[in-house]
């Protein structure tokens, strides 16, 4: 997939999202006009319209470039590989769904499981799975880090901030 194709898909997603917001979400989930001031729907409509118009302009620009068969700059023909942008945050080319899944799935499971089996067990399990998923194979380090980190944050939250840790307290 080229960068142009990927951008086009992204613009189509933005257009689809904007249409759903304008046609369904804003009319159904915005209070009715009370008779004074601006309508509660005005600013959301303006914001979504900006998104829609910008995405449409971008898509038209891409379409014109493609149909007039203009030569494309190198970076638009190929994926940018592992670029480090000067804003200091990492920027990489391809979307790696497998990588995303191995990080996101344990995190989502943590959110769900903590309500049932409590903070300590869930956190230790999460940290072990997470470290394994990112490639760590030193089991002593994996277990030690999971236990220490869970314990430190438990102490900080419970006794430092006086905040109850998430999940059933009985299984602490």
């Amino acid at each position: 997939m080229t960068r142009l194709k990927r951008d086009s898909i992204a613009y189509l997603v933005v257009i689809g999202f904007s249409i759903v917001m304008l046609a369904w979400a804003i009319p159904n989930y915005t209070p009715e006009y009370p008779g004074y001031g601006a309508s509660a729907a005005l600013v959301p409509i303006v914001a979504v319209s900006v998104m829609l118009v910008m995405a449409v302009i971008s898509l038209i620009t891409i379409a014109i470039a493609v149909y007039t068969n203009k030569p494309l700059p190198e970076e638009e023909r190929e994926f940018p590989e592992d670029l480090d942008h000067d804003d200091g945050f990492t920027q990489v080319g391809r979307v790696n769904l497998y990588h995303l899944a191995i990080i996101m799935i344990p995190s989502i499971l943590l959110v769900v499981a903590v309500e049932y089996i409590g903070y300590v067990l869930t956190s230790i399990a999460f940290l072990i799975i997470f470290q394994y998923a990112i490639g760590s194979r030193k089991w002593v380090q994996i277990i030690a880090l999971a236990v220490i980190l869970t314990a430190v944050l438990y102490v900080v939250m419970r006794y430092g901030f006086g905040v109850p840790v998430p999940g059933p307290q009985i299984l602490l």
Partner: protein
Amino acid sequence: MEMIFAGLLDSLSPASLMFVFIGVAVGVLIGAIPGINGPMAIALFIPVTYYMSPLTAIGFLVGLNKGAFFGGAVSAVLLRTPGTPEAAATAWDGYPLTQQGKGEKALRMALYSSVAGDFISTVVLILIAAPLAAVALFMGPAEIFALISLALTVIAGIGTSSILRGLIAAGFGILLGLIGTEPVTALPRLTFDMYQLGGGLSLIPVAIGLLAFSEILLQLEKLRARGGCDQAATKFSSKREDRLLSAREFFESKKTLLRGSLIGIGVGAMPGLGAPVASFMSYDQAMKRSPHKEEFGKGRLEGIAASESANSSVVAASLIPLFVLGIPGNLAAAMLMGAFMIHGMQPGPLLFQENAQLMYGIYGSLLLASLFLLVIGRFGLRYFCKAVNIPAMILYPIVVFTCIMGAYLGKSSMFDVGVMLTFGFVGYFMRKFDYSYVAFLIGLILAPEWERSLQQVVIISEYDTYMFFQRPVAMVLMALTLIVVVRTFWNSILAGRKKRLEAAAAAGAHKGD
């Protein structure tokens, strides 16, 4: 005067002193770790400040930010991997010095330059913010609406190669910033019947997800692709002249330091430019004006002074638009604005009227943070250098788990952890697809104020659509907004055309071969 002394005395309270000190120390440590920067650190640590007094909280976060700015120089000098983006220019001369065994001398220059730039900038902030805020008090809703429109347009161009994508991101941020209770009807809006969204999307889980969690997702992806990136430990020369920085060496760069500080103040005071711009601009000027141009990039201390004085002076200067107008000019200021709001204050000109004592307390904390940075940097330099060697396999699980618990801490709610993960996911795609998360976050923060000022304009003007034409300042600001949009579009069209012509020329040359 009484208020000033009371505020300064507040900043000298044991709790305030302790947390500013901790903030600076933690900031230097975090900034030294490649991949973790100031805004990320503030996002991660804001939840910790829920339980502090406003002065202690803001002092801690300001200290954290100042520390992180200097910390970025540690990995830049030692590894040529800037811990923060603004330290990139520091690496150009710092790393060659490390290769010569003079890493400690380079770091000392970076430290003293950072402290000098930061101190000058803090003094300027103290001198001009309150008088400017007094002028800004004359601004009505029309001017505020126009000003926020201008700020959003300027900021839409940051962090992306396309203004169109920047505006999409800003629009998305504004849309999500409007979730919650609508101000006129006091009824829920865009909450999709979820009671947790009644108060709106919490800034902190969104910021942690967008800045920290998505960054870790990307860094881990890179790490896996490279198959690990453990760094070799850095060695310093044991010779005294290679380790220490003499007063003569420091004062040789006094003009560069002053110029860098002034550039940093100018750039920081303008929304949207940021520390990396100041740093590169100052370095460029130092090189052009130096009689030893050829030594730049090969280990010249003046290069480090130029970069560090400029980027550190941005920290306090970026608070000028925040304190005076309530507009965050960069990510760190946006995070600090979030912290102000969490503690029940709205940054802007009224802050000086309603919380004058607190503001002078914050000024005191800013000055103390400069002093602590000098002390901590001077005595802890060797220890902070070890932070650059923390293995990724230990660092990332700690950061990820801190993200999760930080998101939970605000409301003791796993719903916020879900919000954080969602925005980690969204942030991952925003970065992959080059959508500006800076514009998104600032749109999210400014949306309620933007809407409030619009509502006030509509109600005060009694639906007079020509109201902006009767307010000269508002009209000028709206005209500037339009000029910024047209100019940016025009520039992007020209840049696109230039690129295509170059591509066509390259294709022609290739055929000719």
